[in-house]
């Protein structure tokens, strides 16, 4: 039932999910999804609203734990380690798997504090000077340094929407994660800010494994190299982005790509 294009399951996969199901109470939101996420590419999850793509994404850093009624079964391996295991340290997992949300959510603190918060709580910097280096590096990688270097003490919430979202990306990369999850990171932004975020995703790919959920097929086509199509809680098709968009195997994928539903 799930169509997986050839060469998608490789030995070097960063995340290996097997038979993952997510239940919200009685309702099955994700049904038996297995997928390998490559460390070298941007992987996009697409699909109509309510298809479970965000729910599945939130399994990778166990954010579903914060929803009392949610239950996850199956295996998700991060470099061979099952992160769904009870012995998995969630705090450490979230330091390794960063996340950027749909709505920019900077802390109501200064720009500097926003970036420095993660490194501080994880003890990644001993001295103020080390912290300064991390803040500058993270903001530079997020393409925000030149815009904010003179006002690091201003509140993060005073920035524009697009800047706030790049601040959140900088916040995520400040703790040097291995994977960055992005849950519709540009859906609340205008086209110019969206273009900047997409450019940024392009620059960050390769350094971090990036998984992005988007409801914009154009965006998936622009930024990702791998695409998974979800429908009604199931993964319908997974393959190279170019293949999915030009040569989908499944009928449902074709219908969605051509805009017949969704």
């Amino acid at each position, binding site marked *: 039932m799930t169509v997986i294009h050839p060469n998608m399951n490789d030995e070097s996969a960063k995340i290996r999910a097997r038979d993952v199901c997510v239940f919200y109470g009685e309702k099955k939101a994700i049904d038996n999804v297995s997928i390998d996420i490559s460390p070298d590419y941007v992987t996009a999850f697409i699909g109509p609203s309510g298809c479970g793509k965000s729910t599945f994404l939130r399994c990778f850093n166990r954010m579903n734990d914060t929803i009392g009624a949610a239950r996850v079964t199956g295996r998700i391996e991060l470099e061979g380690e099952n992160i769904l295991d009870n012995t998995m340290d969630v705090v*450490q997992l*979230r330091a390794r798997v960063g996340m950027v949300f749909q709505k920019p959510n*900077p*802390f109501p603190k200064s720009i500097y504090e926003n970036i420095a918060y993660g490194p501080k709580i*994880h003890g990644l910097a001993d001295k103020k000077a080390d912290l300064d280096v991390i803040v500058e590096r993270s903001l530079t990688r997020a393409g925000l340094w030149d815009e904010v270097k003179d006002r690091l003490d201003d509140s993060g919430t005073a920035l524009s929407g697009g800047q706030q979202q790049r601040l*959140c990306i900088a916040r*995520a990369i*400040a703790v040097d994660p291995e994977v960055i999850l992005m849950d519709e990171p540009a859906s609340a932004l205008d086209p110019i800010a969206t273009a900047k975020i997409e450019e940024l995703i392009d620059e960050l790919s390769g350094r971090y494994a990036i998984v992005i959920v988007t409801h914009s097929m154009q965006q998936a086509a622009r930024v990702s190299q791998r695409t998974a199509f979800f429908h009604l809680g199931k993964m319908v098709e997974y393959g190279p982005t170019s293949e999915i968009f030009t040569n989908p195997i499944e009928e449902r994928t074709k219908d969605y790509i051509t805009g017949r539903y969704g």
Partner: protein
Amino acid sequence: MNSPATTAAGSAAIAPTRTPAFEARLAKRYRAERNFRLMGLGAVIFSVAVLVFLLGNMLVNGIAGFQRAEMPVTINFVEAGVEGDAVSLTAPTALQTLEMGGLPDVVEFYAEAQLGEDAARELSPDAWRDVAAALMADPALIAGTRTFQLAASSNLATGLAGEGSPEMQALANRLVSEGKLAKNWDWGFLARSDATSPQAVGIWGALKGSILTMLVTLVLAFPVGVLSALYLEEYAPKNRWTDIIEVSINNLAAVPSIIFGLLGLAVFLAIFPNMRSAPLIGGMTLALMTMPVIVISGRNAIKAVPPSIRDGALAVGASPVQVVFHHVLPLALPGMLTGTIIGMARALGETAPLLMIGMRAFVATPPDGFTSPATVLPVQIFLWSDEINRGFVERTSAAIIVLLAFLLLMNGLAIYLRNKFEKSW
């Protein structure tokens, strides 16, 4: 029937929003809005008028309460032979030493000489204590001469106010015309404590009692309230038990305050039987009453913190405790402070529960600690308003002004703290 012709004819006639009936309805809507605004404005004006009347009345009466009838008496301590030096006058027994040394007689002698016999008789019997207090504060006075403004008796003060017996009024008028009696600003009112004569009373004892009681209430109710709110909102599982706890807390906030007084009487005074009237027990009783208010407002403030902030903190790897103390608490604190101040303001004005635990005792000295007998401002006001002596009416108003000023101070502090911690997101 729905032919194009009829539709065209209908729209050609008049659009439904341009008919006279529609305009009449529109006018009615505007009228309803205007009436509502006038009613609201009327309500605001009425409450402001009542408030202004209340405060104005209080102020006019209260200003007189901050004054007292005094007579000037000049005392030459050297000539009178009052004994004492820096050591004996600063000793704890100085008051007794001065009394034994005949200071009351000295004061009476000079008063008779300077004011006349009839006026000296109307000097407050405690007038010599003011002289003694001045000597104890500044022992160097013993080597010289000093004019004191000494309190008149409450009868003479009533006479000065144009009331009481005709003889007293006549005496008061004569003394005023001779410059021997006047109403002076009485700063001592803010420094003395309760007394039997309205001329000798002060508010400091009750004010200090209130401050000590409020400190106990704050120290007990604020941490317990905030931590309960945090636990219930952030950690407690949502089940039948937490539902019961929530309902209980909501009910606790609505329990009549005298019930808390009974609880204090039955429980706290049973545990600490020799602490009747103590600020510690009063504060514990009021803390029981204040805590539910802090819990409820605290939970609402925590609920108002956007979940996205929590998600953001969790996603960078903050532990649940770090999320609470680094992000949720700072954002919820302004709302919690508002709830705290509402609870504290209610506790400050509370009389009934404190009557139950004995804080209505006559306490003539300010409390020196949390365990010594004390009274509080609203109870003091209640006690004075019960007095027969005419002079207490003005003193009561003055005490109310002190209570309101204390309340304003507390509210001002809360607003300052809230603005300091308030952040936008």
